[in-house]
């Protein structure tokens, strides 16, 4: 039992109860269905932009890209154009692979001391696999939810739903992305509990978003497959939000408000947390800069202005006297 995740777990349970009791007992549908979601989206977009603008004030540092391949060098040495990019194109390809396929996680290894005191690095792909599954399924779930915010629903969205539900298990049909999201998020949680080194460095702020996302996924799955809520009413509410005509339809279950509240908390919490890696990944200096320091001079952006006096200027000042004294000059009189 670690207090670090107990705090986070208790926080999420309190949030769930808050929304459920608030709606079912206190009748605060407008607060949890309209006010909170609007505040959350404002906090999310505004906070996100604010955070990134703060970062953007930092000068571009001297290039220290992490290199995983041969730097551009002599013509007969084979240059690795993506893993040690020299041009912007190489950087774009590297960033693209990093952001969409988490290439640096793919290189993850496990370091172990064997009994003979030998150190060994072992293949470790589980983190890569599950974080990829987690992020992609989360993206699909997010895009799928646009059906509640768009009317008419675009055909591309229906196409995505078709693919996501292609197993046609049960009715309403099982969406694979929801199940994968839940399983992957649980894996990411268990990883932090079971691996001692990772548990040691895990903080409450690492567990909180995981619990939040797990409970968002659980409440969503519960709503869709088990304690069914009135989906037309749910869309009426969300469309009201999206068209700025907020309404509270009758008879949507409390669990819907729990789901909306948890998502709102996630959105509002986003700019203040480690979740900002969504924006930060684009700004990682060790990834997004070409390794061209041998070819281009980096001028330190915070160098103070220095008044310089060049040799040419010096010679201009003293040319006559230098010639008189018999010193060599670059430019004769």
């Amino acid at each position, binding site marked *: 039992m670690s207090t670090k995740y107990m705090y986070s777990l208790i926080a999420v349970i309190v949030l769930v109860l808050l929304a459920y009791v608030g709606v079912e007992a206190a009748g605060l549908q407008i607060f949890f269905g309209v006010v909170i979601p609007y505040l959350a*989206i404002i906090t*999310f*977009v505004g906070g*996100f*932009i604010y955070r*990134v*603008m703060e*970062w*953007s*004030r*930092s*000068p*571009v540092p001297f290039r220290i890209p992490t290199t995983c391949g041969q730097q551009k060098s002599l013509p007969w040495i084979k240059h690795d154009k993506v893993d040690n990019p020299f041009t912007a194109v190489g950087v774009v390809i590297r960033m693209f692979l990093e952001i969409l396929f988490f290439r640096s996680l793919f290189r993850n290894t496990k370091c172990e001391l064997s009994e003979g005191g030998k150190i060994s690095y072992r293949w470790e792909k589980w983190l890569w696999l599950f974080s990829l599954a987690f992020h992609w399924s989360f993206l699909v779930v997010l895009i799928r939810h*646009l*059906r509640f*915010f*768009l*009317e*008419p*629903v675009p055909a591309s*969205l*229906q196409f995505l*739903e*078709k693919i996501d539900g292609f197993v*046609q298990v*049960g*009715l*309403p049909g099982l969406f694979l992305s929801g199940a994968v999201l839940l399983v992957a998020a649980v894996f990411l949680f268990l990883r932090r509990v079971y691996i001692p080194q990772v548990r040691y460095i895990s903080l409450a702020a690492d567990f909180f978003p995981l619990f939040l996302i797990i409970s968002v996924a659980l409440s969503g799955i519960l709503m869709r497959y088990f304690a*069914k*809520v*009135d*989906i*037309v009413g749910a*869309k*009426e509410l969300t*469309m009201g939000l*999206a*068209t*700025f*005509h907020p309404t509270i*339809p009758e008879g949507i279950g409390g669990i819907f408000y729990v789901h909306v509240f948890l998502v709102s908390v996630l959105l509002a919490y986003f700019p203040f947390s480690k979740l900002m890696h969504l*924006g930060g990944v*684009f*700004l990682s200096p060790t990834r997004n800069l070409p390794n061209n320091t041998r070819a281009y001079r980096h*001028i330190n*952006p915070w160098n103070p202005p220095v008044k310089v006096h060049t040799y040419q200027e010096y010679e201009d000042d003293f040319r006559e006297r230098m010639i008189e004294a018999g010193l060599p000059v670059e430019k004769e009189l």
Partner: protein
Amino acid sequence: MNDKNKIVAGLIIFAAIATFPFWYNMGKAVPVPEPKLSEKAKAAKVCVEPKEFMKSEHMQVLDVWRDVVVRNADRVYLSSSGKEYNMSLSSGEESCMGCHSDKVEFCDKCHNYASVDPYCWDCHIAPKEKK
């Protein structure tokens, strides 16, 4: 030197994506669909189960019916009200579509709104639309 221009461009893209539903629906009032009951359904007043139950569970009911009919050849459904019904989606008067005869006005109204695309009509022959 800093990359403010590039970052601002990225943030504009982010803001556009994050607020997509707002400008997609800009200036649209979206009416909430109201499924229309046929005359026959109105006259019957009750479905096989209470309305609220049917509203949330009809897909489950149909799923179970399909399995029971196909696997056990059993077409009798005992409702919670004690009445017996013929289990069938679309054949004859004693079926779902026998009463809810207008698919467009009844089924599709909500299904389209919620972007639900059931695969009933992959196998069953959809009732002809009255033009």
